[in-house]
């Protein structure tokens, strides 16, 4: 059975999903089930003068209508779970429905419950809400100005928090030989899983148990938070995440809507189902990014970087979402030096309330932004001193011999060898030849650019003590139980919560190698708080590094106990027992052996166990890693800009990633592709747009450009393996590396292509109109074109 880890194995979860046998939230049908719909604010900022539900109450099939006032004191406020210490954080209370004032387009106003799915939508149209408009604050920098309209009256200048890490004195910048300054706008985007959010509540009045199925990446966090919001014991609240149609961070948050559905099911003592519509998802589900990043990078003329100073002004939306405050601070600000040994660094972040949808973690959460700024700055610096961008990178990389490497902000990178993936990627690209071709093409008037991103990412959340120190309201250890049945088949319970990543397969490979049993003998239970005692879910590329680490330890405990039983049966001492490929044997004595299935049976029957050994064969492990993990790599983009239309074509995309041990190359490549698609999407097409009045102008797939198949070239992937010392598997996270790396790679390529026009920065997304305008205005005085 050995050799499963590292093998290209097709996924165990697929036959079910491929044949229409998945079980997603909307597939759930319960007897007597009612349907919910939420009337949302069409205005960015307004007082609710009155709500008239008279006509709505008479509509056929209406069961209940709740306004914010009806629920006052009955459902608690929805808290943020990441309260950054030392940042003067002011958390504005968010209630499940707006009470007297709406603060963004999409803010919930009225909850309607009716007998059928179409009927409940009709009822929304019969409700009259009288609003009195208030002035709005939409863009973060304006919202911080004196006299800007306040989103929350008692929060001065709309500043939710002000966080600082590191010091760089002015003279470090001012007296440096070279200083490069740039301001980047990392625009707001929507995570956009193809399955929208959903919640189904079912209450049992007999025992007071409330079951809530919801589209959560972290059902135990949902249980923890909602038990308080709904004032119900954690022991009586069961949260289940069924099959989830993608998350990307958008399903981390504990939302008002989930609390509403749980409340209504309990109040009405009937099951209630809420399925979010796509336009509702665009306005009411968390967005990502929306950060304005001002950077100063100092160094010497010969290319030694000496200091970096960054200011991030982050648009948090109307309320602080579950993980929201951690993204532009901890996740971003401690990683601003990227893969480089820059001795001095400082980051200052303002989190700003505005009349927009809340922002929270989106694939990469802070790391795509930190990578974007440093990788763009490296290119700008290289250009300033006339050095090849690859050479500047090499010159400033944290050196292989310096690992574990402490960056200027105090984070300790677990393992790394940054030259390795860079060299491999350059080999695939044939860099020297391509630079020569680029020059020749430029002379012919063709705009080709090469962009690099030699990223490092912080992931694998993580050590719980550190989580506490950075204000995370919970732990981030992981939990695994392996239960060996009498037949030798096993069920594994994990506190991670997959939603497309393929945990069942990856984790089975780990267990199969450990216990020497076939993949098909291993089943998994995830995402049900009644079945899995505790866990912290799936985000921050933590599942393999932390969840897999826990599974690996639990497997060791199974083997340890099984060895005792085998030794007893073989009448020898435990020290003499060897376990290999599913067989316990006495070293040097052929024929004296017990198979894993034999021990499974004897442990469970317990007819003849050694003294002090309890019956059954089950082990649980709680793994709290001592550090995060830091995957790294090199992504290279070759882009060509069409001068006449402003269209950009990605000619090549090369990704060489080092994520420690690659457990399954097939699913790992899939993660890399998907991550890249989302980063390239941000760079080139995607963007949530608000009008100055706070109207959401990109509220459907008709207005928001979702990348399609024809938008992408074939991505060339490869891996190098530098193991992590943090977990038994040597594995790091892979889910977010693609997104983290790709934004900068694309942008560097396009800016490089536009170099003949003297362009140093282009704002994302790279719409053809924007590029065409640059060419039209910038090219006039350039006689090479």
């Amino acid at each position, binding site marked *: 059975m050995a050799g499963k880890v590292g093998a290209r194995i097709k996924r165990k979860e697929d036959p*079910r999903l*491929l044949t229409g046998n998945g079980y997603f939230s*909307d597939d759930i049908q319960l007897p007597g089930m009612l349907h919910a719909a939420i009337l949302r604010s069409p205005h960015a900022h307004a007082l609710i003068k009155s709500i008239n539900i008279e006509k709505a109450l008479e509509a056929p099939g209406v069961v209940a209508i709740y306004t914010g006032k009806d629920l006052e004191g009955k459902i608690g406020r929805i808290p943020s779970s990441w309260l950054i210490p030392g940042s003067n954080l002011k958390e504005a209370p968010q209630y499940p429905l707006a009470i007297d004032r709406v603060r963004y387009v999409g803010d919930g106003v009225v909850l309607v419950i009716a007998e059928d799915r*179409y009927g409940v939508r009709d009822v929304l149209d019969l409700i009259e809400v009288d609003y009195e408009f208030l002035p709005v604050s939409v863009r973060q920098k304006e919202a911080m100005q004196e006299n800007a309209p306040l989103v929350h009256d008692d929060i001065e200048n709309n500043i939710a928090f002000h966080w600082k890490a590191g010091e760089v004195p002015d003279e470090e910048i001012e007296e440096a030989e070279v200083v490069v300054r740039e301001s980047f706008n990392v625009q707001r985007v929507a995570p956009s899983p*193809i*399955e929208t959010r959903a919640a189904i509540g079912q209450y049992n009045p007999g025992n007071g148990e409330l079951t809530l199925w919801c589209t959560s990446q972290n059902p135990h966090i949902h249980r923890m938070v909602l038990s308080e919001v709904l004032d119900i014991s954690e022991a009586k609240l069961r949260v289940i995440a069924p099959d989830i149609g993608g998350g990307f961070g958008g399903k981390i948050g504990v939302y008002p809507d989930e609390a509403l559905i749980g409340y209504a099911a309990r109040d009405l003592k009937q099951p209630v189902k809420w399925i979010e*519509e796509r336009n509702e998802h665009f306005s009411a589900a968390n967005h990502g990014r929306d950060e304005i990043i001002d950077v100063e990078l100092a160094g010497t003329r010969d290319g030694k970087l000496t200091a970096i100073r960054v200011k991030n002004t982050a648009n948090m939306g109307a309320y602080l979402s579950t993980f929201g405050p951690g993204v532009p601070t901890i996740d971003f600000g401690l990683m601003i030096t990227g893969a480089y040994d820059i001795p001095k660094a400082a980051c200052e972040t303002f989190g700003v309330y505005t009349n927009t949808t809340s922002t929270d973690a989106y694939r990469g959460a802070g790391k795509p932004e930190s990578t974007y700024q440093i990788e763009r700055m490296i290119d700008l610096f290289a250009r300033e001193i006339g050095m090849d961008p690859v050479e500047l990178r090499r010159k400033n990389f944290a050196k292989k011999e310096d690992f574990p490497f402490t960056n200027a902000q105090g984070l300790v990178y677990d393992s790394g060898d940054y030259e390795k993936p860079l060299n491999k990627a350059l080999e695939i690209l044939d860099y020297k030849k391509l630079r020569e071709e680029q020059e020749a093409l430029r002379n012919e008037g063709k705009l080709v650019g090469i962009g690099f991103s030699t990223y490092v990412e912080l992931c694998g959340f993580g050590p719980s003590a550190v989580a506490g120190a950075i204000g995370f309201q919970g732990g981030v250890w992981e939990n695994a139980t392996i239960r060996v049945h009498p037949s030798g088949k096993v069920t594994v319970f994990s506190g991670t919560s997959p939603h*497309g990543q393929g945990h069942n397969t990856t984790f089975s490979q780990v267990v199969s190698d450990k216990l020497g049993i076939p993949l098909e003998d291993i089943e998994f239970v995830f995402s049900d708080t009644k079945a899995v005692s505790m866990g912290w879910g799936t985000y921050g590329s933590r599942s393999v590094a932390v969840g897999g680490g826990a599974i690996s330890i639990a497997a060791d405990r199974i083997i340890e106990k099984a060895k005792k039983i085998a030794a007893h049966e073989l009448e020898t001492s435990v020290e003499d027992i060897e376990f290999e490929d599913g067989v316990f044997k006495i070293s040097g004595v052929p024929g004296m052996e017990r198979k894993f299935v034999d021990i499974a049976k004897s442990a469970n029957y317990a007819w003849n166990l050694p003294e002090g050994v309890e019956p059954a064969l089950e082990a649980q492990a709680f793994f709290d890693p001592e550090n995060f993990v830091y995957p790294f790599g090199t992504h290279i983009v070759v882009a060509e800009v069409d001068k006449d239309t402003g269209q950009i074509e990605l000619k090549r995309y090369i990704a060489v990633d080092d994520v420690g041990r690659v457990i399954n190359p097939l699913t790992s490549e899939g993660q890399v*592709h998907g991550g890249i698609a989302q980063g390239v999407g941000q760079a080139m097409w995607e963007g949530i747009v608000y009008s100055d009045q706070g109207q959401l102008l990109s509220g459907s797939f008709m207005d928001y450009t979702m990348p399609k198949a024809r938008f992408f070239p074939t991505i060339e992937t490869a891996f190098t393996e530098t193991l992590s010392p943090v977990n038994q598997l040597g594995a790091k996270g892979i889910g977010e590396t693609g997104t983290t790396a790709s934004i900068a790679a694309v942008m560097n390529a396009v800016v490089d292509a536009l170099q003949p026009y003297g362009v140093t920065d282009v704002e994302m997304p790279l719409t053809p109109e924007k590029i065409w305008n640059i060419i039209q205005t910038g090219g006039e005085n350039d006689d090479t074109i």
Partner: protein
Amino acid sequence: MEEVNVTVTINGKKRSAKVEPRMLLTHFIRDSLSLTGTHIGCDTSQCGSCSVMVDGHVVKSCTLLAVQVDGSEIITVEGLGTVQNLHPMQKAFWEEHGLQCGYCTPGVMMAAIGLLQENLEPSDEEIREGLEGVICRCTGYQFIVSAVKHAAALMAEEKQVVGEGR
């Protein structure tokens, strides 16, 4: 609202249900006939997750009313193949890792079957163009393209009639 009777042959079986005239085909399939393999992703006919075959053509089932397909023959993902006997398209998606969360997958496979109906030997570029009507957020499409290519080869090998249920 007065309900009307709609009868279809779906995955080879004749099924009837009384529905509101405004009911979308996609809800008819999912809620009235309890075939939940077909999914809804966008409400505005962009994502293609709800794609099914109606009388041999691939259709986004959110673009039709149930009453419009009265008397039609429909194939959904449940009619393609079973776990024990996968349709070549399903087999190819499995082997090439053409899915991650699996939500868009039934619709994407239907769209791909429609594509192969027109062209049994598509190039990568033709596949990418041909999948214009579907959105996948997980895969970055690369392994979907490999899967469709692989499916074309498998179908040619097995002389599988495109879109025929098993």
